[in-house]
């Protein structure tokens, strides 16, 4: 039987800060020696007290606003009580009923246009320590304990796997754009939890069970997990069984999930307001200021490129991949009013410039090609001064040397040759040298195009391709 997916996501994101959430330990813990970035607070020594990091809270507010949330003007922290070796206080300071952000909304691209994903809440909490398993022991490193996390929870609005991955990618991109996190997956700076159940197509009510899979460290594994659970849950439902409502975990990166058999009752977290931290309040002015100073988000930027510049979805998507890249592009098209030209600049940028950067491991900041240089190249092309073959040829030199297109063209005499007489000469030569083409043309008239390439080669790419094309056709007609 075919079932409908009902999926909700929980994403934990490391907020980018210098110090930890509730203490002044250095938050850059990733490759430090174990237990070297700890203090009485994050080590859970008796008597230590938490003091919240102002910047971390600002990061949470920024993300809340970017996800279309309302901000709770009166908010607080709460204790979530449970025992685990990597949780040094025996409770995690988190937020319960008054999260910083709530009731937001995000539009994602889906099969039938756009789809709305409701954001239940965005809240702030502290991370736990790290556990490394080594035989019969678990080794504990509390460097990660107390690092600030922003948790985003969505409603179970996802119905397709690709919507989940789109959302996850866009979210990662967004947090990087607004500077809330580096979202480096390899450093565990963004982790997913998925809540998933299935129902018969056409049913309106939410399923009576929900399976939670925790600790997913990458979007590709997220996809695999959903695929695995889809199969596993479908098989159970086909047999008439209801999948057990439980938390499942991963043991590897294959997407296979395993039951963790934690008793339901032991999850009584006994939430109560954190008495060591006074409440947090926000004014309308502060919220307004945060909104106003936020940079343009990737979704909005993409929509603008498509609407205002007429770029297609794929091209726009590539341009917004990083904020730096988008900004470079925007500066390159500054003052350009013709969308055709904008599109050309975009294609050259995405095709050749970025390819060069990737191949030579050059960063945008190190690029010797300036925005003006790219504009000039396209201008020369559009004025018919150089051919596209030549343009493609000189761009690498521009990138390597920082020389303008006009300079290189002049130095090497690469202007387009429009001289029909010169072209006709070469055309005659090329036709004579390629008798087979005349034969091929009997079956396929378009075979003559091969000759264009030969002529261009003879003329070092400088010939005007339209003139060459016309000349060849005329010459062949005479034959």
């Amino acid at each position, binding site marked *: 039987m075919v079932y409908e997916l009902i999926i909700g996501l929980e994403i934990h994101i490391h907020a980018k800060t210098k110090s930890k959430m509730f203490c002044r330990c250095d938050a850059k813990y990733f490759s430090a020696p174990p237990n070297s970035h700890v*203090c*009485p607070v994050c*080590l*859970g*020594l*008796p*008597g*230590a*007290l*938490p*003091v*919240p990091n102002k910047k971390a809270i600002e990061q949470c507010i920024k993300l809340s606003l970017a996800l279309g949330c309302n901000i709770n003007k009166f908010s607080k922290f709460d*204790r979530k*009580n449970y*025992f685990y*070796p990597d949780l*040094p*206080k*025996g*409770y995690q300071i988190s937020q319960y009923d008054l999260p910083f952000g709530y009731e937001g909304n995000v539009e994602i691209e889906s099969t039938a246009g756009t789809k709305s994903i409701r954001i239940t809440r965005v809240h702030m909490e502290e991370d736990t320590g790290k556990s490394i398993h080594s035989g019969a022991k*678990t080794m*504990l490193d509390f460097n990660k304990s107390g690092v600030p996390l922003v948790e985003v929870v969505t409603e179970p609005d996802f119905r397709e796997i690709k919507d989940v991955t789109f959302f996850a990618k866009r979210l990662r991109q967004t947090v990087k754009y607004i500077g809330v996190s580096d979202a480096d997956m390899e450093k565990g700076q963004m982790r997913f939890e998925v809540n998933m159940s299935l129902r018969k197509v056409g049913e309106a009510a939410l399923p009576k069970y929900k399976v939670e899979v925790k600790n997913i460290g990458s979007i590709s594994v997220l996809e695999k997990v959903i695929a695995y659970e889809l199969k596993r849950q479908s098989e159970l439902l086909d047999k008439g069984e209801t999948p057990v409502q439980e938390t499942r975990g991963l043991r590897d990166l294959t997407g296979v999930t395993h039951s963790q058999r934690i008793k339901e009752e032991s999850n*009584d977290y*006994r939430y*109560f307001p954190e*008495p*060591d*931290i*006074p409440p947090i309040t926000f004014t309308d002015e502060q919220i307004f200021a945060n909104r106003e100073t936020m940079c343009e988000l990737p979704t909005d930027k993409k929509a603008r490129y498509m609407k205002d510049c007429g770029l297609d979805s794929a091209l726009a998507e590539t341009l917004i991949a990083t904020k730096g890249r988008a900004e470079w592009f925007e500066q390159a098209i500054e003052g350009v009013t013709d969308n055709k030209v904008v599109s050309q600049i975009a294609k050259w940028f995405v095709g050749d410039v970025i390819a060069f950067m990737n191949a030579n491991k050059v960063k945008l900041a190190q690029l010797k090609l300036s925005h003006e240089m790219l504009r000039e190249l396209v201008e020369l092309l559009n004025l018919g001064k150089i051919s596209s073959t030549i343009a493609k040829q000189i761009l690498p030199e521009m990138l390597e040397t920082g020389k303008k297109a006009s300079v290189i063209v002049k130095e090497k005499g690469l202007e387009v040759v429009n001289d029909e007489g010169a072209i006709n000469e070469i055309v005659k030569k090329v036709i004579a040298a390629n008798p087979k083409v005349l034969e091929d043309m009997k079956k396929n008239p378009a075979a003559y195009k091969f000759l264009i390439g030969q002529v261009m080669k003879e003329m070092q790419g400088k010939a005007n391709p339209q003139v060459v094309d016309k000349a060849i056709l005329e010459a062949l007609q005479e034959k």
Partner: protein
Amino acid sequence: MNQDELKKLTISTASELLASKKLSSVELTQATLDVIEQQEPVINAFITVTKEIALARAKQVDELRAKNERLSILAGIPYSLKDVYNVKGVQTTGGAKILEGYISPYDATVEVLMKKSNAVLLGKTNCDSFGFGTTGEHSGFGPTKNPINIEYVPGGSSSGSGASLVYGGGVFSIGEDTGGSIRCPASFCGLAGLKTTYGRVSRYGAAPYASSYDTMGPMARNVKDVAIVLEHLAGQDARDATTGTAEVLPYSTLLDKSIKGMKIGMPKEYFGEGLDPEVRASMEHAADVFRSLGAEVIEISLPYTEYAVAAYYVIGTSETSSNLARLDGIRYGIEGEGDTWMQKIKDVRGKGFNDEAKRRIMVGTYALSAGYADQYYKKAQQVRQLLKKDFVRAFTEVDVIMTPTMPVLPPKIGENESDPLKLWLMDAFTVSVNPVGVPGLSVPTGFAKNGLPIGMQLIAPHFREDIILNVGYQFEQEVK
């Protein structure tokens, strides 16, 4: 200096002797250590005596004084800390077996302040585990006795702080008060003891009982000494987000004001049937003293008093059940035994917590648990706001509230073992103060026929320690 002199020594006198170099800090400290050594086998007021640290600090002060360095009034004065305060390099147990052997890597803010003033740390005093107790009988390191009469309790939970001062083992002590833990031993030991306003003194580094009640405060031989120590402890701390920004007043200079015209309220709920007749008589005598000083003594009412103990214990046990969750034997303290990590945690907490601690943790866990949190924890918080309103309204009628500190005379050791609820109810007069956060000073008012001391509690509005120190001082001077 002999023990009799040490038993009476005040900060003013000691400071003067040290400043005039009639006595060196090392001499004073050594004499005090000798008394401690002699008394401890019977009284058991200390868990750890920091002999080397004490003598090193004393020596350092003497050297500074020889160079004519300007020193604090507390410089060279021997003091002790209740064993809830972290001291770097020293064992801190909170009075509980579960923390035996825990060597702290950091100083509590209170200790940082004492170090700064160059006072001399004698050691960490015994206490009921984590503050759970009113008598000093519930420590993981044996009960403390009252040196006035060793058959009786010294009061708790800052039992060692009180007892050590009685026998001359220090000039002042810093205790901790969550529901009466400074005021009760002050009353049972004939000392002055101040429960400060919540947020007046930093809690950073003090092993917690209840986060929204805990206060740090001085115990000493007279009100002036309490005021002097308070000046050195009060103030905002960046490491404690609940410390207020209220101005720190020069408390020891505000004691001489006349209290003529002041209104002193005696809440009728604190003078009901259960009050010991000798305590009642002592309070009435104190009221007469206030009248003779020109103050007006009137009856007031704090109607929510009957709910105070219940609300106090619900919130207190709830917060403590969470605060003590970090004691899992993994990073410090005694280790657990068992086949799995879970078993080890359960084992260490089973054997490391005493009966009273386990009882409170269980009540607190229950009060926060699913299905019960609304009728226990949440409800108690609502009552708390009403208790607060009682006091706020009372302070529009009077300047100071006066009650007995304890409803009973100091009981004998072992008297209340079988009835835990009865012990909880003994705190009735002190527990209402902590959920509200106002300051309370216990001042000796006299003695019972059996020679044991009686004390009264003076309560002022938030951050008005100056008022009760002034009233307490005036009373003290009058009855001297």
